[in-house]
């Protein structure tokens, strides 16, 4: 599936296929979310449940990353440049990250139940490969906008395009 973006600043929408159940193996190697130039990089990270995320501090100062989201509450405490913290995310949901030192920092980790997900590019396009054929429910999440859902019929072969409208 893919979608065409119509506007700029359309990155960081997370599109997931909601109704595919099963047991899926998370990646063996951790996924990285850096603290760099007082930002989380990437701003939105999408992972399969069970994935471990590394949080290296790449800034010449200390950060204190924490979250009070229901699906994962944690507080790393203060750690300085070069230090790395690791955490395994074992429940699906959206985890909002904050820094107790730098109020403007925010990031999101979207933990999904299955590996059929994508994060949109800056032009709004996204691509999810390997989706089993059949009728599925797509969900589009964004940190500030209301989530949208669409039903899609995935063919045996080829691709299907699903667009989400996000206004002006």
């Amino acid at each position, binding site marked *: 599936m893919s979608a065409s973006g119509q506007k700029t600043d359309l990155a960081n929408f997370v599109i997931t296929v909601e109704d595919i159940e099963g047991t899926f193996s998370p990646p063996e190697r951790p996924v990285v979310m850096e603290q760099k130039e007082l930002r989380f990089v990437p701003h939105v990270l999408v992972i399969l449940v069970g994935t471990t995320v590394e949080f290296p501090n790449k800034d010449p100062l200390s950060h204190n990353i924490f979250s*009070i989201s229901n699906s994962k509450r944690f507080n790393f405490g203060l750690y300085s440049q070069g230090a790395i913290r690791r955490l395994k995310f074992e429940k699906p949901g959206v985890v*909002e990250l*904050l820094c107790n030192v730098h*109020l*403007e*920092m*925010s990031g999101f980790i979207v933990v999904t139940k299955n590996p059929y997900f994508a994060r949109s590019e800056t032009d709004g396009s996204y691509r999810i490969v390997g989706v089993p054929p059949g009728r599925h429910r797509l969900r589009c999440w964004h940190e*500030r906008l209301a989530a949208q859902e669409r039903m899609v019929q995935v063919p045996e072969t080829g691709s299907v395009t699903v667009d989400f409208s996000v*206004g002006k």
Partner: protein
Amino acid sequence: MKRSFAKVVIVSLMLLLVVLVFSTRRASAIPSFARRYETACTTCHVLPPKLNAFGVAFKNNGYRMSEDDEKFIKQPDIPMGSPGWKKVWPKGGVWPGAIQDRVPLSAAIELVTDVAPKEPVKVDFAFPEEVELLMGGTLGSRFSFFGDLAFEFEGGSTNVDLERGHLNMRLTESPLLNLRMGRFETGATPFSRFTYRLTDKDFIVSDFRAVDGGFRFRSRQQGFELWGAKNSPGGGGLQYSLGLVNGSGSSNDDNSHKDFYASGSYKFRGYGVAGAGKPLDSLKSTENYIDNSVEVGAFTYIGRLGDSPSNEIRYNRAGFKVNAYIKRLNLFGAYVHGRELVLESGPPRINTNAWFAEGDVVILPWITGIFRYEQAIGDRGFLQVKRVVPGVSMMLRANIILSAEAPVYFGDKNSLLNGGTEHNGAAFRLAFFF
């Protein structure tokens, strides 16, 4: 003959051009909003400063678009804390806020030519008559502010007046309940001189004083106001205000009593008073003056001036208003009954009845014709004002307004309206905003 006629025509046209060049209006349109949303003034104004229905909803939402405000803002705010801190508060952190990227400052300059054929000074140029600094905007999603600092140039001196300066806090998710504090025009004022008036002459219902130095609606007050707006399913909706203010105008209070007022209105049909009620695809800048609807309202104001029996004036006002839009025509008016109790001397009670009716018609999208009849009659005999105010207002550009009016008095020209004498004549004005 032909040459003489041509000369007369050319001279007349030149005089008309000269006269029309000097024309102004009391400024209250605010270009910083136009900059913030990169949209024309006509998005919110029939003709600045008169708000259209969309502009009323914008104001009622605390100077924000009613729906999807973020997607229309072209100058994003600078966040002061990530939104995630809302979930952490109050145990930790400060509730996140925002500040506008650019200082929301605008200016308005008014040039006036007064023509008074029967006065000693028959033509008077006031260039400028007034320069205003206007500021307004939001501080995050719940707070907004508005300020209006006027520099008036008269008789060689410059008067500086903070006409308005207030902070507004929205207490509910919708604009149903807000708290305004500061210096402002009260919600009991029948029709705002800042956001509704197209003429230099204020609405008489706002302008009259029953006694010298007494109360009038046009005086800005200092205090608090609870106010709100709510859409109704069929369009329009409810607006209300409740206020507690000093009552002594823009001065500090002169007694321990606070003035109280209440107002309410209901609009049938038309654009929602709190917004469209649905997502906006885009901002519309044309034909926003059409809003077929009728609004009816009532208001009351009770107050006291002075701090001893020798100078105390107790007063109250009560009245109603009607505001109807029929295609390009806006018919509106108000009636106010005033009662003053002057303890100092003479018959203690003074009753005043004032009313006006006005029709504004959008002749062309950039020209509005104005005709108003109004009167204020006091039962003591020294307030007997009857006048018509015909006028025309033109947008040379969305932010350059040319207007002319020629009030004609039928009653006594000696009035207490502004502590002076009114006269037949004309006022020509040019106002520009940036």
